């Protein structure tokens, strides 16, 4: 590392065109601003629009989840009482019933089925899958790579509108009466339920359309990584976030088309009865499960890899330390992407043939390896780092804790014999919430906190940020840990009622969901307050070394950088580089700098 001090990345003296304004600068009139955003091909604006949309969908899905939990506060029962020879039949324990939405047991159950289906569908297809890639990913990928935009900005905008279009179908199907197939659309139920109605077809179409949006994002990122890296940035100089997104994108491109054809075949089956999933015509309903999970297992890695991508950044920045085993972490993203394609059968242990089940069980254990590599490397990065316990770092620690639980219980489920007992119980529900919510969503919130100053140029309140974290963390564990116990004791999923033995767990879980709600509300108001009255953010409040912090303003200008960045140091070279700071001395000096010239990388402004 020769002298890089005073690299004049920040110095510039060229014309300040309008592209030099912060990207958030409004246009002359409100209408012009709206048009500008609606037609923008700026990856940052598209990222922000996605962020808003995804958070809104998270809110809708969360309302559905709360409704599910409230319904489960007590088991739904029919109580028959005979007083003075007069028999009255009463339904108890159903909120749907007591608020008058359901008239009898059957319709109470129907409501329950529709709401948990809606919850699952929204959370999977409208929230988690697009969440990190489409919002933070869109915003950050070009910035981290030192590019002006993603490779195909118009496709990016197209993907956003396709997302809106797909969401429209999803909401439409809920509005016209809702779907009760579960988010998995298993046949034969999904091909015969509500025959003659379009609700199910709408919902399938929604998932089908959303797939295209996801493909376009993934395709865009792959090409961006290949073709738009800044001069000087080799593959192993890329931030690990980019590696994670690269792995994600590969899966999105390779797996999503399969769900496309699966859903198309499902629609054909439903409308034209072509017979592929219909045993009466020689088809096989379990074949649908193969088709579905061939996409949907890889897609759980589309969900978690971006979370892991954020984790690597959070840990490195808030420990001020080079990520331990950079290459191992980078390659594990690719390994996860590859292995993700050969383990889908673990979702069908109870339905497929036993030979295939055994093979899939063995393969499933493979996928734990690269995930463990990542977790171990993060933990090793903590060791002897100068840990700064800001909100994002708390979220990183929360992720380590929760994802480890989620991942390890995944191994229980991957063991064929154990899964025969646990399949379709709350153990599964707890497992996937620990990974999807405890992993992806937790990392997502941590990431939003970390990049909030960059995205909006405002700081959030640290105290309320951390309060929010603790509420979310406690609420989460309270909601989902009891579900592990219930699951082991045999509480099946997707039921509106249960035996008394499970009462305490369900009640804990429901109370937990309220604590979670409180935590999210704290975050929400914290962010709103920050936008309205937060202090202005410096270009590099965390003293990070990736390009979006060192070379771009907060918020970045429309063209991202005044000068094309030239990469002169690795993304995590905290050992010998210190970024220019707004307050000198705020960040510890690099250890290797003692007795030598301190290398200072200037901030973008």
């Amino acid at each position, binding site marked *: 590392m020769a002298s890089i001090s005073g690299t004049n990345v920040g110095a510039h003296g060229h014309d300040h065109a309008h592209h030099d304004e912060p990207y958030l600068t409004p246009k002359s009139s409100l209408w012009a601003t709206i048009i500008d955003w609606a037609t923008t091909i700026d990856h940052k604006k598209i990222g922000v629009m996605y962020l808003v949309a995804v958070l809104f969908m998270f809110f809708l899905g969360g309302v559905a989840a709360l409704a599910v939990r409230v319904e489960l506060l007590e088991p739904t029962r029919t109580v028959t009482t005979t007083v003075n020879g007069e028999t009255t039949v009463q339904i108890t324990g159903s909120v749907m019933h007591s608020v008058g939405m359901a008239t009898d047991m059957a319709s109470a159950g129907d409501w329950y089925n529709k709401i948990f289906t809606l919850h699952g569908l929204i959370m999977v297809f409208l929230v988690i899958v697009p969440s990190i890639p489409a919002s933070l990913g869109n915003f950050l990928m070009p910035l981290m790579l030192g590019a002006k935009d993603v490779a195909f900005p118009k496709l990016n905008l197209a993907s956003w509108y396709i997302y809106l279009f797909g969401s429209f179908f999803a909401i439409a199907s809920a509005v016209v009466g809702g779907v009760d197939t579960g988010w998995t659309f298993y046949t034969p139920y999904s091909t015969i339920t509500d025959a003659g109605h379009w609700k199910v077809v709408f919902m399938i179409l929604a998932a089908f359309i959303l797939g295209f949006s996801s493909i376009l994002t993934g395709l865009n990122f792959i090409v961006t990584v290949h073709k738009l890296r800044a001069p*000087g*940035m080799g593959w192993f100089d890329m931030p690990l976030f980019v590696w994670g997104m690269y792995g994600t994108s*590969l899966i999105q491109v*390779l797996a999503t088309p399969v769900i496309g054809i699966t859903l198309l075949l499902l629609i054909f089956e439903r409308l034209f009865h072509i017979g592929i999933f219909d045993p*009466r015509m020689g088809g*096989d309903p379990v074949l649908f499960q193969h088709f579905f999970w061939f996409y949907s297992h890889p897609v759980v890695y589309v969900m978690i890899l971006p979370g892991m991508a954020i984790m690597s950044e959070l840990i490195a920045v808030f420990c001020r330390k080079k990520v331990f085993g950079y290459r191992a972490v980078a390659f594990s993203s690719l390994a996860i992407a590859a292995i993700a394609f050969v383990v889908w059968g673990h979702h069908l242990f109870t339905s497929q*043939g*036993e*030979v295939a089940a055994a093979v*899939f069980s063995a393969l499933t254990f493979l996928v734990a390896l690269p995930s463990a590599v990542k977790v171990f490397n993060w933990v090793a990065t903590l060791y002897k780092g100068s840990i700064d316990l800001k909100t994002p770092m708390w979220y990183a620690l929360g992720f380590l804790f929760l994802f480890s639980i989620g991942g390890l219980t995944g191994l229980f489920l991957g063991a064929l014999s154990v899964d025969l007992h646990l399949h379709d119980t709350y153990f599964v529900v707890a497992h996937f919430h620990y990974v999807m919510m405890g992993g992806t969503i937790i990392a997502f919130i941590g990431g939003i906190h970390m990049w909030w100053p960059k995205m909006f140029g405002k700081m959030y309140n640290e105290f309320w940020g951390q309060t929010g974290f603790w509420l979310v963390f406690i609420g989460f564990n309270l909601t989902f840990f009891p579900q592990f116990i219930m699951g082991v004791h045999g509480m099946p999923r997707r039921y509106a009622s249960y035996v008394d033995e499970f009462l305490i767990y369900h009640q804990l879980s429901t109370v937990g969901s309220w604590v979670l709600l409180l935590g999210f509300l704290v975050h929400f108001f914290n962010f709103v307050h920050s936008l309205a009255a937060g202090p202005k953010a410096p270009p590099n409040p965390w003293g990070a070394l990736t390009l979006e912090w060192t070379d771009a303003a907060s918020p970045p200008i429309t063209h991202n950088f005044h000068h094309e960045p030239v990469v002169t140091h690795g993304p995590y070279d905290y050992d010998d580089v210190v970024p220019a700071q707004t307050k000198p001395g705020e960040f510890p000096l690099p250890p290797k700098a003692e007795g030598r010239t301190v290398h200072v990388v200037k901030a973008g402004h």
Partner: protein
Amino acid sequence: MAHAASHSAAHAAHAAHGDHGHDHGHIVIPQRTLLVVFGILLLGTLATVAAAQIEVWFAATFDVVIPQWVNVAVALSIAAVKSTVVALYFMQLRYDNPFNSLVVVFTLFTLAFFLGFTMLDLGSRKALYDYKGSYVTAGGQGNISVPARPGAPAGAEYETIPAGTSIAQFARITAARQAEQTLANGGTLPAQLAVFCAQEIQRLQADGKPLPPYLVKFEQVREQYAAILAKKMGHGHADSAHAEQGASANHARVRTGLTLPEFSQHSSHSKDSGHSKDAGPAATPAGDNPAAK
């Protein structure tokens, strides 16, 4: 600048692929090459058609049973060669950035895993536990409502298939109905109905059962359809082996190594009980059928 090295390395890697003669690094494929490739593709197409014909001819002439996989393997290998040629030359993969080829290879791997593991399951059902195999009534048990078939009562949009009748059987029931109506009105039967009537007569006679009136009527006008019947049923008639197997053989067909119990079962069913019943417990997984693998 420690990273300058990796910078130039990245660009060197970039320069390494493709030909950087001009600013695109793309090659212009000579027209001759394109023509030659087109020629190869035509030859490949002829080869796969010829292979199929030769096989039929070979099996018929020497009365041998060629296992099914031979046919599949030959046809698919030729298709694979043809697509490779298309990819390499027409799609220029040969001259392109190798990463593009890598994309294709990964895609094919993905496809292979998809097909392979799914087949592993469906091909090995029932390997240990019988209940994991499927017991379904071949072609359905009826009791479903389907779009109205020709000859349905006027104005009916849907018809309900009677319980215990499969869709395929229902097709025969409605065909009989339609033939009956057409013949009663003195109309002309469409080709497939004529063939149906002839086959139906054959089936009933083989069972020694009496012909229903509409078939009797058909016998009277059979001459009218002689050309069609000769074309569609000719070969099958001549070949007694086929007739024994119960195959009505609309077209000349190779005798494959196919000896599915279900196949013969079904045929015998349709011989001895007309079409009133479905083939018994069907949906035999291919685990029992080495020929299909």
